[in-house]
């Protein structure tokens, strides 16, 4: 639905002056790739006076971005007067991955404005507008990404590595290395892509299906040669959380795995990055 406050706040749509005119905006693209959020918006305006001002570069179409509570920025149409495209680095936005876009028409210069399309007596008035003044605004579009980039750039406990095709793991479906600060799991490109897809749909399922054999192997290796692994970051992390240093036999391994997988916030994967749970109950 088009909303036309023009020029705000002297006129607004409650006067009904602009019922025949449109300021419609469509979100034409939104994606996140390689840590960059990209967005595109296209406007459709049929109000002749505004169109004339836009063509003469006295007014421009822009998007006001709010990532509450920290960021407010303006992205203006440049090459195409009716389109705004922009990119945002994931590190520059708050961790709730929440975007609010407000399409606006703003003045590029100070100017005298008279709208003869308005009802009397407004049509007889000339308004003095400052640069950056809002003369048209559209209702906001709010987008919250359910998945994004995790707060931690961390050394999560398990890191998956995608082998270049046609390379395959040497030890069955995955190669597991424990001599690094993290548990390195190398899988074929096909499996990696499958894991990514499953994880985007149901990460807990993947946790259960994939973490189980990895932890089983890891903990068996650990109890067989504790001295080699006690100082490893992955071992200490698991111990801080799940006391793995106390494990001595296969039964205790199974118990530990059961406990780990039951943990509601165990997310061990690095290749898929998931927004942490936020609380909005209060």
């Amino acid at each position, binding site marked *: 639905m088009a909303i036309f406050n023009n020029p*705000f*706040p002297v006129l607004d749509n409650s006067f009904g002056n602009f019922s025949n005119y449109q300021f419609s905006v469509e979100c034409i693209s939104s994606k996140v790739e390689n840590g960059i959020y990209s967005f595109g918006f296209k406007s459709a305006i049929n109000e002749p006076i505004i169109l004339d001002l836009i063509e003469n570069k006295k007014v421009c179409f*822009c998007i*006001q971005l*709010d990532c*509450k*509570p*920290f*960021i*407010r*920025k*303006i992205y*203006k149409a440049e090459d195409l007067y009716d389109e705004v495209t922009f990119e945002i680095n*994931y*590190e*520059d*936005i*708050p*961790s*709730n991955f929440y975007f609010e876009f407000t399409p*606006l028409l*703003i003045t590029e210069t100070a100017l005298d404005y008279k709208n003869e399309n308005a009802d009397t007596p407004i049509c007889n008035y000339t308004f003095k507008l*400052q*640069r*950056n*003044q*809002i003369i048209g605004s559209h209702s906001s579009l709010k987008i919250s990404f359910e998945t994004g*980039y995790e*707060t*931690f*750039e*961390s*050394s*999560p*406990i398990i890191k998956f590595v995608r082998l270049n095709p046609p390379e395959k793991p040497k030890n069955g479906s995955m190669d597991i290395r424990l001599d690094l600060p993290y548990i390195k799991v190398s899988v074929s490109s096909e499996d990696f892509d499958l894991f990514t897809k499953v994880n985007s749909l149901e990460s807990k399922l993947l946790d259960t299906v994939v973490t189980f054999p990895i932890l089983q192997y890891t903990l068996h290796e650990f109890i067989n040669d504790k001295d080699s692994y006690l100082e490893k*970051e992955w071992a200490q*992390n*698991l111990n*801080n*959380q799940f006391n793995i240093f106390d494990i001595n036999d296969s039964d205790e391994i199974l118990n530990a795995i059961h406990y780990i997988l039951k943990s*509601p*916030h*165990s997310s*061990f994967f690095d290749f898929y990055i998931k927004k*942490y*749970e*936020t*609380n*909005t*109950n*209060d």
Partner: protein
Amino acid sequence: MNNKENIYALKPDFINLLYNDYLENYQNKKIKDFLIDINEKYGNDILSYCVPGDTKIFLDDEIRYVMNTTPNKYSKKQLYLWDYEYSKLIYTTNTNPGIYRFNTQNEKVPINTIQATDWRIWNYLSLFKLHKYVIKRWGESEDPVRIFIRKLGNGNFSRHSILRLYWTAEISNDINREKKLEFLETLWRDEDFMTQVTERSTANMKEQILYFLEFCSNPDNEIILFKTKSRKGYPIYREFIKLFLADSNISTISNCNKDEVFEILTENLNACL
């Protein structure tokens, strides 16, 4: 010293558990009672209640020590000076490590926006790692907003005991100046001014809020803003800040350059007199 302390993130479920505990069992009690109790109960095993993995966020050990152990030397009316002092202390600059991360060149740098808005970390700091400081500064309060953050918002950020210190420095940090936190002193001119500025949506415009603080730092303007009372009996700055907020509704202030912001502010200041 300059050893680093790992900063962990409390599990959201654990934060909820503590929050509900506070609401249910600490009615008519003080924050200090709650902090003492939870540190006795969970303090020795706190990692069990943190999200696994490393946040890669660190707090300088000496700073933690200073904050937790230095007694308050300010009177009740001067507590904002304490806040100002610790705000400088907790923020990373070239000369102060504060709360930081490492960049790819292994240099200490300020945490990024995602990290700075991770409520799990700030809860960890206020409830556990810096709880002794919180007891000194806010121990007599009963307001849970001083120790808990449960959602992102200007109000929470400017009231939470630890995040307000970090956030005011972040807002005031001007990377183009030699003295990067030059305007932090102005923002902490008094507690009410800091709250009035940071609680409003205009605080989201990083570049323009720096112009705003620069304008308020001008000695002539400072006298008017802070030492003159409006007709309602408040310092002039309250009305001045409201006008700036009103301007942000009719103009795209976030697109204004310094001259344009100063022009708006000069007009508003004259309107307040």
